[in-house]
Each structure stands twice: as structure tokens, then as C-alpha cells.
């Protein structure tokens, strides 16, 4: 596919522990991302969302698998080549204040990736690029001389976005960009991201544990559980007609705006805890909490297979 921007194949990240065991953070995940598409990744805490993002950003060593960025295997690139590629994919983080160095002014913070990735720019060019991006994320140029702690969380996230976009990347990985913000501010930041996606021709990988945020932001949605893809499909199909029991449970557990209408629509709430990723269940990892679990689920690992147009599910007994 020519418009394929990113392809991830059989990605696996294990964190070895003492005694030969290891934490299965991301286990055999494959997906693709098209140009200007936004992919939402949802899942509970500890399901491997952030590790997946870090792996895509090449900040995390892969145990196995491949990441192909515009036809190049980026996981095997040398440091210098990787740094040249870094211009094309950038990231914003969950905690906006903590991800900004408290000792640097906003001007220096936003200019930093430019100085690192495009060292032969002149000072005036850097300044004009910083000024224009600061304006585009909705901040005043008077912000440039101030320090991060003088700003609110939403403003800090705007600074982070400016810093990520100043090098004009193709892909922006957002690791829970709004979960540390007030709800009213969340909407502003989300709309800003959508706007910028349009105007900058960005692809987004958008990680969240909030289904409504993912619904707002994504073209396609991936549901992760214990490091494995449970369901992957077009947003409307997946969220309106989930085929995997876990997706159903997840949607059902989200608070509904109108409780009278939305309740008891789908499966009952999940019970129990997420099993330990050190020793994940055999077969289907979700079977310990699945209402439909059968004997087969303990034996065979369900493959992610197409179940309808634009919808894939990893379940032996899809709804």
C-alpha cells in the first residue's frame, strides 16, 4: 500500500525479571497506519498502551517484531539515521508539566527539537518557526520568555504540542495527552489536536483509557488487553457494534451521559482483576474474566481475524 505510513508486525516487548520470568507488556501486536489517519488505542491501566507507544517511537527496545516506517525498518536503524528520521515522528506525553524542563523558558523548550534535529537552521529562522507554532497552538508570544511552572496544565500541553509539531512531523504519538487535564480543558486540547491534524497533514496514534475521548479523536480503534489486541476496527463499527466480549464490557463500564437510556444495554460489568502480565493465562488472555469462556479458550490462542468489513476481532466466539 502506497499510503501506508507505519506498519507494525508481530511486535513483542518483554521485560525480563529475576528468575527467568518476564512481564509481557506487548505481545504479538500487528497493525498498520495510513497517512493522515488517526488510530485510537484503548485499554485498562497496565495493558501495554504506553509501552506500545514507546516502542513505536523507538524509545523502547523490542524483544521481537518489526516496525516499518515508510518502507524503512526503523528498529534496526543506526543512531544517526534514526535521529534523521525523528523529525517525522514526535510524541506528546501524559503529564504536561513534568515533560517540560523546569529550568528552560518556553522559547528554549520549543526550539530544542529544532536545534537537535535541524542544526543548520539560523537563529532567526528558528525564532520565526517557534513564533508561528506558538501562535498556531493558541498561545501568546509573550509566553516565550516564561517558565513552564507559570502555566496551567492545558497551556503546558499546548507548549508540548508546539514542541512536538515545530519540526513538522508526519506522525504524532499522543500518550494520554488529556488524562491529566480538567474536562473543560480536555475538549480544547482535543479540538486543537484535530485542527492541527487537518492543517498539518498529521497522522495520530492516540492513546487513552477514556472511550469518549477515543471516539472523538479516532478513525480506527484498537482495544488492548494484557498486551494483546482484542479488537481492531473502524471507529463506528467497533464502538457501536463491538464483537469482542471485552470491548463490550469496556463500553458498558464507561459512564453514560443518560443513565436511563444507556444502562443494561450490553454485557454485564466485568468482575475480578486483570491477571498478572508476568504469568498471563494460557490460550485467550481474557478467558479468566470472560462470560463466554469455554474449554477451547484455554487451549488455543485466538488469532486476530476479520469478522466484517473493517473490523477484526481476536475471539473464538465473537458476539
Amino acid at each position, binding site marked *: 500500500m502506497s499510503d501506508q505510513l507505519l506498519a507494525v508486525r508481530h511486535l513483542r516487548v518483554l521485560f525480563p525479571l529475576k528468575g527467568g520470568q518476564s512481564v509481557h507488556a506487548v505481545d504479538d501486536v500487528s497493525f498498520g497506519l495510513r497517512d493522515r489517519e488517526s488510530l485510537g488505542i484503548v485499554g485498562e491501566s497496565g495493558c501495554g498502551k504506553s509501552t506500545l507507544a514507546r516502542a513505536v517511537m523507538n524509545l523502547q527496545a523490542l524483544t521481537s517484531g518489526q516496525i516499518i516506517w515508510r518502507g524503512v525498518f526503523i528498529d534496526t536503524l543506526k543512531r544517526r539515521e534514526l*535521529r534523521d528520521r525523528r523529525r517525522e515522528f514526535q510524541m506528546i*506525553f501524559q503529564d504536561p508539566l513534568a515533560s*517540560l524542563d523546569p529550568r528552560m523558558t518556553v522559547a528554549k523548550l520549543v526550539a*530544542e527539537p529544532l536545534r*537537535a534535529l535541524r542544526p543548520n537552521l539560523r537563529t532567526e529562522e528558528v525564532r520565526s518557526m517557534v513564533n508561528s507554532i506558538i501562535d498556531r497552538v493558541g498561545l501568546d508570544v509573550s509566553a516565550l520568555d516564561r517558565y513552564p511552572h507559570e502555566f496551567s496544565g492545558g497551556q503546558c500541553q499546548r507548549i508540548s504540542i508546539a514542541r512536538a509539531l515545530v519540526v513538522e512531523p508526519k506522525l504524532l504519538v499522543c500518550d494520554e495527552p488529556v488524562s491529566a487535564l480538567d474536562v473543560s480543558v480536555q475538549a480544547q486540547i482535543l479540538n486543537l489536536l484535530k485542527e492541527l491534524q487537518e492543517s498539518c497533514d498529521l497522522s495520530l496514534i492516540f492513546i487513552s483509557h477514556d472511550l469518549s475521548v477515543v471516539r472523538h479523536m479516532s478513525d480506527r480503534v484498537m482495544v488492548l488487553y494484557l498486551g494483546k489486541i482484542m479488537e481492531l476496527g473502524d471507529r463506528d463499527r467497533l464502538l457501536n457494534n463491538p464483537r469482542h466480549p471485552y470491548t463490550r464490557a469496556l463500553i458498558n463500564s464507561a459512564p453514560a451521559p443518560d443513565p436511563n437510556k444507556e444502562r443494561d444495554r450490553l454485557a454485564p460489568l466485568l468482575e475480578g482483576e486483570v491477571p498478572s502480565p508476568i504469568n498471563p493465562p494460557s490460550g485467550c488472555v481474557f478467558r479468566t474474566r470472560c462470560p463466554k469462556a469455554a474449554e477451547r479458550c484455554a487451549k488455543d490462542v485466538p488469532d486476530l481475524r476479520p469478522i466484517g468489513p473493517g473490523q477484526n476481532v481476536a475471539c473464538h466466539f465473537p458476539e
Partner: protein
Amino acid sequence: MSRERILGLRLTPMTHRRWRNFRANRRGFWSLWIFLTLFIVTLFAEFIANDKPILAHYQNSFYMPVFVAYAETEFGGEFETEADYRDPFVRDLIVDSGGWLLWPPVRYSYGTINYNLPVPAPAPPSAENWLGTDDQGRDVVARLIYGFRISVLFGLTLTLFSSVIGVAAGAVQGYFGGWLDLLFQRFIEIWSGLPILFLLIILASVVEPNFWWLLGLMLLFSWMGLVGVVRAEFLRARNLDYVKAARALGVSNGKIMAKHVLPNAMVATLTFLPFILNGSITTLTSLDFLGFGLPPGSPSLGELLAQGKANLQAPWLGISGFMVLALMLSLLIFIGEAVRDAFDPRKAAE
């Protein structure tokens, strides 16, 4: 927000709070000023204790013997060698022709021998030699002034070099971690297990040590002092969100270490510096005391202490050496404690 200035430098609120905390510790604050005064005064030791006048006026022209070596013949004497202004003959030549000499308060340099002692050296304190002379007839006050200067200069230089090396080593270890860290730590454990004083003594007997040789030898071992703290700070800071963010943005490791992580480690480094300075001075003094330090004839506190030990009948040697050393080390400890408390984040400003 208010930004205070000190010496024209813009201070961040944090630095300003630390400065106020430091000032609130009266003992440390005054120790700093006393130490600085002593240090700056002794930097000009040649103008305080010297066997040459600061200024001489002879036949309507001025001479500055402190800076320029004038031959005795300049003043109508006989020798072509440098004039000995302490010699009554030279003094008379100048004064009798209507000139005058401006002497420093102590008319002895560290190596000047007083040949006119009424008693065999070491001579007790007198109006001429305020703290007496050592066993070679040299003035103790002059030797203390020069000895203080060389100790502090040596300590400062050693501290500077060992901090630079120690911070760099700790930074690399802490930032990259893993095998590099493991191997480096084992190396440091072995290296710091070496008996330093004995090695210095052996090495000092192989080469004739001068100031720089001695500095190099001691640097071999003193750089390890800071590695531990800096490494710990880097281990902690490399997982801070903004360091991870910088890595994700593509900033190079060197830049991340210098710009984002090092400022975190500076606090730990600064709090350690006075104590490292103290340690450097003590090591130099002990080497001098044992006779393996600075070359013979250099003014050194350790050598004065050794003389005091060898001449127990002349207590002014040991006592004055001890007092100066004790004063210097105490001042440094007080300063160090005040700096440490000022940087302590748990101590809120009042």
C-alpha cells in the same frame, strides 16, 4: 514574580531562597566572609610578608622591588646581584641619600633567614618575629601566610579538577547505566580500595614532586569523591518525564546530559565541594608532614607541624601551625554545613 539580583546576576526564585537560607545561617555566612577575606589577603602575600620593600624612593625616582629585581649597583652599591634590602649597608645607601623604603608589615618572606637571632633557632616570639622562627631561622608568620595561600590554592585546584572528572564519570555511569555502570562501579571499588597515602608516598619518591605533580598524583584518587552522588542523581533524573521527552524529541545524549540532567546533579555537587576542598587540604598537609609533599623549602603548614613535632621545646611552631590549620578547616566545615542546609529542599524559607 519578584526577581532579586545579587552582584548584578538575575536569580531564579529557587536560588534566591537558597541564598536567604544560607545567610540565615549566621555561622556559615560569617565563616564564608572570614575565609574569603583571609584568602584574598593571602593572595597578596608578597605585599604583607616580604624581604623586599613594596616601594622605594631613591634619588627622585621610585622603585618597586616587589615586582622588579634591581641590582645593588642601582643604589650605588658594589654587587651586580639583586639588592638585599635587609642588609644595613644597602638600607643606609638609600636612606642616607634622602630616599626612603616602604616595608610590608612583616619584613620576612617565607624563605628569608634571620641571621641576627639572639638565641639559636628556633627562636621564640619577639617584636621582630611575631610568632618566632622555625629551626632554620625563618619567620613563622611569613611561612603561615604563604602556607595558607598554597594550601587553599592547591585545595581549590584539586577540587576543581576532581569535580570535573568526578561529575563526568558519574554522569556517564548514571545516564547510560547497565553494563557500563556495573563495570565502572567495580573498577571504582577496587581503585578506592588502594591505600592512597602509601601509593602517594611511593609515587612521590619516584618523582621529585612539585605543585603540579602532586596535584596530578592526588587527582588519581580524589576524583572518586563525587562519582557516587552524581551517578545517583543521573540514575534518578534519566527517568524524569522531561528527560524522556527530550529523548523522544531526538535530542542527543550529550545535550540531554548537559542541559537537562546536569543541573539536577549540581545541587549535590555544590554541597559536597567544601568538604572535598577540606579533604584535599588535609591530604596535602599530611603528605607535607611526612615529608613527601611539596619540595623542601616551600612554605607549607604540614612542614611547620613536622617542625613542631621535631622541636617540642619550641611550642610556638606546633601551636601556630595547628591554630591556622584548625581555623581554616573549621571555617570550611561551617561553610559546607551552611551550603548543605541551604540546598536542603525540606528546609523551607522562613
